[in-house]
C-alpha cells in the first residue's frame, strides 16, 4: 500500500448519503405474529368467547359483590336468620314473593304463623284485627294460602292441612331481649325518627301463655297452643280448632292499671347506665334498627347466618386464587424441568424421567392427604394444599415441553444458532421455548378447571379444611350444605351452580385456546 493512503486525515472522509436514512421497505399491512394469529382464531370460536366473558363476569362478581351490600361484610353473622332463602328488598317492594318457601301447616301452626302478622299490626293492643285484614300487613309471614285439603284423621275427625307460602324472615316474628337503659333510649328515639315499631307489648305469663320464652305466643292459648276465644255467651274461654279468616285473636298483653299495654319492664340493675330492661321486639324492625337496613340477602344465608352471596364471592376468590397460583407455578416448574430434560437428553433425561415417573405414580389424593396431615397445622391449609399441587401438578406440562424440545432441538435453525455461538440458555429460552409456548399455555389454562375440581372435591370430603370466618372455598360451601341441603336447597344450589359454571367455562375456554394455538388439533379432545 502506498504511503499516501496509510494515514488519511479524518476530515477527508464524508458520508455517501447524508440527507436520507436507508431502510428496508416497510410492510403496507401490520405484521401478524403468532399470538395475533392465535387471537384471531380464538375470536372466531363463539363458545370460547362467551365462556371467557362468563368467567370474567364471575370474577367481577366475586370482587364487586362485597360492595353491593352496604350494611355488612362476609364475617357478619346473624344467627337468628340462619339458613334463610334469598330475600331481595326491592323485589318485595315490587310485589314479588321473596325469601319465602312453600310449606304445609296444620290449622294450629297456620294460626300461629298468622298471629305474628296480626300481632305486628296490633301495636296498641286495642285494635280488633282479623286474620283476613292482617294478610294485608307488611309484617305478615304467610303470603298466600295456596291449598287446603281436608281428610278424615285416625280418630274420625276432619283434619285440614294447609299449604302456604311463608316468608321465613318474618316468620321469626317477635323475640325477647334484655337491654340496658341507653339502648332502650336509642330504640325509642329510632322508633320516633322512622315511624316503625321495634318494641311491642310484653306478654303476661299466666295460664293462657303456652311458652313464656317464645315471644310469638302473645295471644291467649291453651296448653297445646290452640288459640282461645269467648263462647257465645261471653262467659268462658273455649279453644278454636278451625282456621277462620274472620277470626280475631284475644291478646294476652301485660297491661298497666289504665289498661294500656306495657312495652318494657325494669328487671334489675342499679343506676341509670346499668339498669336492665326486658323488651319484646319485632325482629325485622329490630334488625333494621341495628344494621340500618331491612334483611336483604341476594342468595340467602348460610348455616351460621352469614350472607351466602358474600361467602360465595370469597369462595370463588379463594378457589380462583389457588387455581391460578397452581397454574402459574406448575407452568414454570414444568417448563424448566421439561426443557432441561428435553434439551440435554441422555442420562439427565433418564434420571429426570424416572423422578417424574415416581411422582406421577403417587395418587393425588394421597399426596394431598399427607401434605394436609403433616403441614396444615404448621403453615395453614391453603399453603399445604398449594404444596401438594406443586409436588405433582407440573408433570403433565413437563412431559409436553419435553416432547416439544425433542421435536425442535435438532432442527437447522438451532444448529445455526449454535454455530453463531449462542449459549445453551439462549437456545432453550429464545429459540426453542417460544415454539412450544402455545401448547404449554393451553395446558396451563386447562390446569385451572382441574385444580378447582380437585380443590372442591378435597374440601368436600373434609380432607382439606379451608373454611373459617374469614375465608371459604366452593368445596367448603358445598360440604357445609351436604347434610342439610334437602331442607334448604339454596345452600346447595348457588355454590353448585357457580362451580359448574366455572368448570364448564374454563373447559370451553381452554379448548378454544387449544384450537387457536394449535389448529391441527381441532376436534380431537
Amino acid at each position, binding site marked *: 500500500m502506498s504511503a499516501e493512503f496509510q494515514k488519511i486525515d479524518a476530515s477527508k472522509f464524508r458520508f455517501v448519503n447524508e440527507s436520507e436514512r436507508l431502510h428496508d421497505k416497510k410492510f403496507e399491512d401490520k405484521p401478524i405474529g403468532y399470538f395475533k394469529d392465535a387471537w384471531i382464531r380464538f375470536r372466531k370460536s363463539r363458545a370460547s368467547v362467551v365462556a371467557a366473558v362468563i368467567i370474567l363476569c364471575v370474577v367481577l362478581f366475586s370482587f364487586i359483590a362485597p360492595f353491593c351490600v352496604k350494611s355488612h361484610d362476609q364475617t357478619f353473622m346473624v344467627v337468628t336468620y340462619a339458613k334463610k332463602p334469598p330475600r331481595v328488598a326491592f323485589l318485595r317492594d315490587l310485589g314479588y314473593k321473596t325469601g319465602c318457601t312453600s310449606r304445609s301447616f296444620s290449622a294450629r301452626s297456620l294460626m300461629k304463623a298468622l298471629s305474628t302478622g296480626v300481632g305486628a299490626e296490633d301495636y296498641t293492643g286495642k285494635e280488633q284485627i282479623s286474620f283476613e285484614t292482617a294478610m294485608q300487613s307488611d309484617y305478615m309471614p304467610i303470603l298466600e294460602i295456596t291449598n287446603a285439603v281436608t281428610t278424615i284423621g285416625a280418630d274420625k275427625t276432619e283434619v285440614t292441612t294447609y299449604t302456604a307460602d311463608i316468608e321465613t324472615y318474618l316468620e321469626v316474628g317477635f323475640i325477647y331481649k334484655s337491654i340496658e337503659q341507653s339502648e332502650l333510649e336509642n330504640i325509642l328515639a329510632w322508633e320516633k325518627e322512622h315511624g316503625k315499631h321495634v318494641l311491642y307489648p310484653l306478654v303476661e305469663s299466666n295460664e293462657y301463655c303456652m311458652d313464656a320464652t317464645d315471644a310469638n305466643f302473645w295471644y291467649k292459648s291453651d296448653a297445646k297452643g290452640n288459640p282461645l276465644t269467648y263462647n257465645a255467651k261471653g262467659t268462658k274461654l273455649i279453644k278454636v280448632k278451625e282456621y277462620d279468616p274472620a277470626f280475631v285473636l284475644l291478646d294476652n298483653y301485660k297491661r298497666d292499671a289504665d289498661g294500656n299495654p306495657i312495652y318494657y319492664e325494669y328487671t334489675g340493675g342499679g343506676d341509670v347506665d346499668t339498669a336492665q330492661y326486658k323488651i319484646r321486639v319485632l325482629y325485622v324492625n329490630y334488625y333494621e334498627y341495628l344494621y340500618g337496613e331491612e334483611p336483604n340477602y341476594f342468595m340467602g344465608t348460610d348455616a351460621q347466618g352469614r350472607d351466602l352471596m358474600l361467602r360465595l364471592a370469597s369462595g370463588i376468590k379463594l378457589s380462583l386464587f389457588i387455581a391460578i397460583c397452581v397454574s402459574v407455578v406448575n407452568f414454570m416448574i414444568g417448563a424448566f424441568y421439561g426443557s432441561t430434560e428435553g434439551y440435554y437428553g441422555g442420562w439427565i433425561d433418564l434420571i429426570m424421567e424416572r423422578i417424574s415417573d415416581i411422582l406421577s405414580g403417587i395418587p393425588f389424593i394421597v399426596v394431598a392427604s399427607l401434605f394436609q396431615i403433616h403441614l396444615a397445622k404448621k403453615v395453614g391449609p391453603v399453603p399445604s394444599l398449594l404444596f401438594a399441587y406443586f409436588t405433582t401438578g407440573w408433570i403433565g406440562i413437563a412431559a409436553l415441553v419435553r416432547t416439544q424440545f425433542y421435536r425442535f432441538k435438532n432442527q437447522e435453525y438451532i444448529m445455526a444458532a449454535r454455530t453463531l455461538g449462542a449459549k445453551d440458555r439462549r437456545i432453550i429460552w429464545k429459540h426453542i421455548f417460544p415454539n412450544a409456548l402455545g401448547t404449554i399455555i393451553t395446558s396451563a389454562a386447562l390446569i385451572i378447571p382441574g385444580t378447582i375440581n380437585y380443590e372442591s*372435591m378435597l374440601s368436600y*370430603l373434609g380432607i382439606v379444611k379451608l373454611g373459617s370466618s374469614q375465608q371459604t372455598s366452593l368445596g367448603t360451601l358445598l360440604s357445609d350444605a351436604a347434610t342439610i341441603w*334437602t331442607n334448604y336447597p339454596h345452600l346447595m344450589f348457588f355454590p353448585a351452580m357457580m362451580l359448574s359454571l366455572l368448570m364448564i367455562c374454563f373447559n370451553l375456554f381452554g379448548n378454544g385456546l387449544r384450537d387457536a394455538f394449535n389448529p391441527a388439533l381441532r376436534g380431537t*379432545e
Partner: protein
Amino acid sequence: MRMFKYVLKRIALMFFVLFVITTICFVLIRILPRELPMEKSQQELILARWEALGYNKPLLVQYGIYWKNIITKWDFGTSWYIAYRKPAWDLLVSRLLPTVLLNVYSLIFSVPIGLALGIFAAIKKNKWQDNLISTMIIVFISVPSYVYAFLVQYIFYFKLGWLPLQMYSLADAGNTYFSWKMFHSLIAPVLALSFGEIAYHCRFLRAELTETLTSDYMLLARTKGLTKAQATARHALKNAMVPVLPSIIGSLLAIMGGSLIIEQIFSVPGVGQLFMRAINTFDYDVFMLDCIFYTFIGLAGGIVVDLSYGFIDPRIRMGER
C-alpha cells in the same frame, strides 16, 4: 420375544416405582404421632402390642419388619380403630366387592350408551344432533360428579321417591350384595357416576371416528360398493376402536379404586370410604395399605392400557421407540 422382554421391563419398572412410593409413604406415615383410644384398658393393650410389633424401634428397622411381614405372612399391619385388631388386608378385601359392584354396573350402563352416542355424533358431524351431543359432553365432563349425585338424590328421592337416598346396608338387603333390593339402592350412585363416564367414552369415540370416517380407505370401501353403514361398521369403526378399547380396558382396572366422593355421599361401604375413614381416624396401617393399593391400581392401569394397544392392533409393535 421382544414383546415379552418389553412387558417384563415395564412390570419391573412398575414394581420399582411402587417400591419407591411405598417407602416415601411409609416414612411420611410412620413419623406421624400416633393417637391412643380413650379407653384405659385398650390403651395399655395397644401400647403393648405396638411395642411387640416394633413400632418403637428405629424407622429403618420398622421398615424392614414391614416388608418382612408382607413377604412372609402377607401381613400389611393391623387396623386399630376402624375394625379393632382386624388385619388391614382383610379389611380392604372386604371393602372391594361393593366398590367393584357399583363400578361394574356403572360401566355396563355407561359404555354402550357412550359408544352409541359417540358413533351417532360422528356420523351426524356438524349437524344439530352432533352440536347437541357435543354441548352435552362439555357439560357432563365439566360438572363434578357430586353435583350429579345431588341432582339424582333430589329428583329421584325427594321429588319422585323412586330410589332410596343411600345404599342399603348389607343387613337391610338380605345379607347379599346381589339381591334385587341392593341393586335398586345402587341405581342412584350408578347414575351419578355414569354421566361423566358416558361423556368421556362418547367424546373419545367421536373424535376418533370423525377422523377415520374421512380417511382414504373409507373412500375405497365405498368405491368397492359397500353401503355407508357397511363401510362405517367394518372399516371406520374398527379403526376408531383401536385407541378407545384400551381406555375401556384401563377403566376395568380402575373400577377397583372406586369414587371417594360418590361412596361418601351414598354411604357405599367401599374402598373409597375406607380411605376416608382411615384418614379421619388416623388408622395408619390401613391408610398405608390404601396408599399402596391406589398407587398399584394407577400404575397397573397404565401398563394394561399400553399393552392392550398391541393386542388389539397388531400393526402397533411393542417396545419400539
